[in-house]
């Protein structure tokens, strides 16, 4: 939103120096190193990729399946993160309940788990012989492992903490003053949530969802541990890359490049709208 007005104002031509003077070397140098560190492996990956294997990979049905599954499961996981995460973020940001700090700490824990540990944890809970999974299987005949639902569950598990924490930040940044104003006008908390809180925190909420989607798209450690790997059902793009890595290096580079292109494409498409305001 702020970007729109900024574009209207004529600006002096961008120069390396701003009005406060040249950036000090002690800050400039690490910043440049940081950029190189992040960018150079991606650039070399592009360079190292054999164009013919790229063409082969792009045309492969297995790749198409895996990409499609990645897209579907990440999107489904993001929707679930919205439905479950926004209310939780709201509770954390707006309701002063006992144990709030504890809940926030617990919610963050999966963020610091190595993905494979997340997968093992999911298995102990929702596996076919898991504490919750076994009764679920016994009563409904349904089990999460080896199903696309299991992939979505794993994605939600790893993405939800990021979504909740950044949504909470968005809600806090939007401030509770407007909520108070709405309350004095007679609005219930639910009405305030719909008409005031969410619209005002929308940029933060959207940024959180983009983050969750990206996290979900890249996730595979928990997925492969919890769900295994089967084309079309549980084999997402990162899983395919991981398994393929065992036999064909050229193909792996090509697959990684496709994954990179798709991720960058989505993030760039969303960046101007949301990520910048976040």
């Amino acid at each position, binding site marked *: 939103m702020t970007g729109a007005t900024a574009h209207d104002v004529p600006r002096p031509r961008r120069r390396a120096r701003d009005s406060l003077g040249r950036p000090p070397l002690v800050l400039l140098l690490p910043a440049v190193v940081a950029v190189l560190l992040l960018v150079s492996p991606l650039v070399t990956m592009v360079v190292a990729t054999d164009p013919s294997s790229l063409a082969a990979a792009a045309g492969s049905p297995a790749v198409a399946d895996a990409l499609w599954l990645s897209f579907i499961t990440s999107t489904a996981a993001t929707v679930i993160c919205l439905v479950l995460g926004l209310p939780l973020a709201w509770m954390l940001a707006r309701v002063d309940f006992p144990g709030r700090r504890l809940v926030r700490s617990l919610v963050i824990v999966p963020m610091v788990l190595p993905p494979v540990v997340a997968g093992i944890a999911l298995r102990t809970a929702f596996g076919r012989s898991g504490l919750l999974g076994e009764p679920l299987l016994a009563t409904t005949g349904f089990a999460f492992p080896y199903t696309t639902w299991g992939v979505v569950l794993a994605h939600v598990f790893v993405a939800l903490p990021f979504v909740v924490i950044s949504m909470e930040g968005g809600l806090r940044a939007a401030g509770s003053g407007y909520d108070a104003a709405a309350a004095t006008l007679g609005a219930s908390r639910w009405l305030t949530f719909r008409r005031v809180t969410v619209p005002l925190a929308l940029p933060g909420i959207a940024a959180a969802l983009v983050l969750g989607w990206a996290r979900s798209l*890249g996730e595979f450690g928990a997925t492969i541990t919890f769900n295994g790997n089967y084309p079309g059902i549980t084999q997402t793009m990162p899983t395919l890359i991981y398994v393929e890595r*065992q036999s064909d290096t050229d193909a792996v580079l090509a697959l990684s490049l496709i994954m990179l292109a798709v991720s960058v494409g989505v993030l760039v498409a969303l960046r101007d709208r949301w990520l910048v305001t976040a």
Partner: protein
Amino acid sequence: MNRPGKEGPASRARRSAAPRVRRVAAGLAAVPLVAAVLTGCGPARGEDTLQVLAAASLTDAFTELGDRFEAAHDGTDVQFSFGSSTDLAEQAADGAPGSVLATADEDAMTIATDAGAAAAPTVFATNTLVIVTPRDNPAGIGSLRDLAGTTWVRCADQAPCGRVARTVLQDAGISATPASLEEDVRATLDKVVSGEADAALVYATDAASAGDAVTTVDIPGAEREQNSYLIAALAGANDPELARAWTDFVTGPEGEAVLTAAGFSRP
């Protein structure tokens, strides 16, 4: 932006969290970048340190052999990096520190030999595919034919154990669909041990290492599709003689005894 880049730490987390890595130093050495740092400022790696890169399925047998080797060669320290044969071979081809490479099949070893990183390999053991089920065998599996309709897993075609499994299934005329194609044999075994699968196709050695946790069902005719374990000294070995001593030890009578006890067959 850097999604694919993020896979690196994730996959490493998988490996370092898996039980197959027995020594922290060896596990870290599997990461070339970290290894490069460690050789600079880590624990001193003296002349009498032997670094062995070995297929995950050799974990138990080699750990046992390592202890015996250390006992027989006073002052020698044997360090292992267990992992996927292909991964390790690629690391060796890439110049990762190591004295000896032991792979679970010929294809993987070829990566290292083609790169000139490994000497001529020797076949030192073979392994046979078997069916494992949870101890109580809830799905009542007695042969490959019983796999249809159950939740069973095998290695992905990209892994050596997957190529063997596919051939064995084709030979037997079985077209049952697995629930998952696991990335390696240990992950495959793990699905049964944890009760997440009714059955899995793994090597006899893996079945042996799982002990009481699983029930083993032999596959008639599987011995025709045995896969070979190869061992070779690496060109970058800091002590070539020690590397040769290890390969001799593994292919010698003591190695044979330990490998046989672990479920391997003689070549």
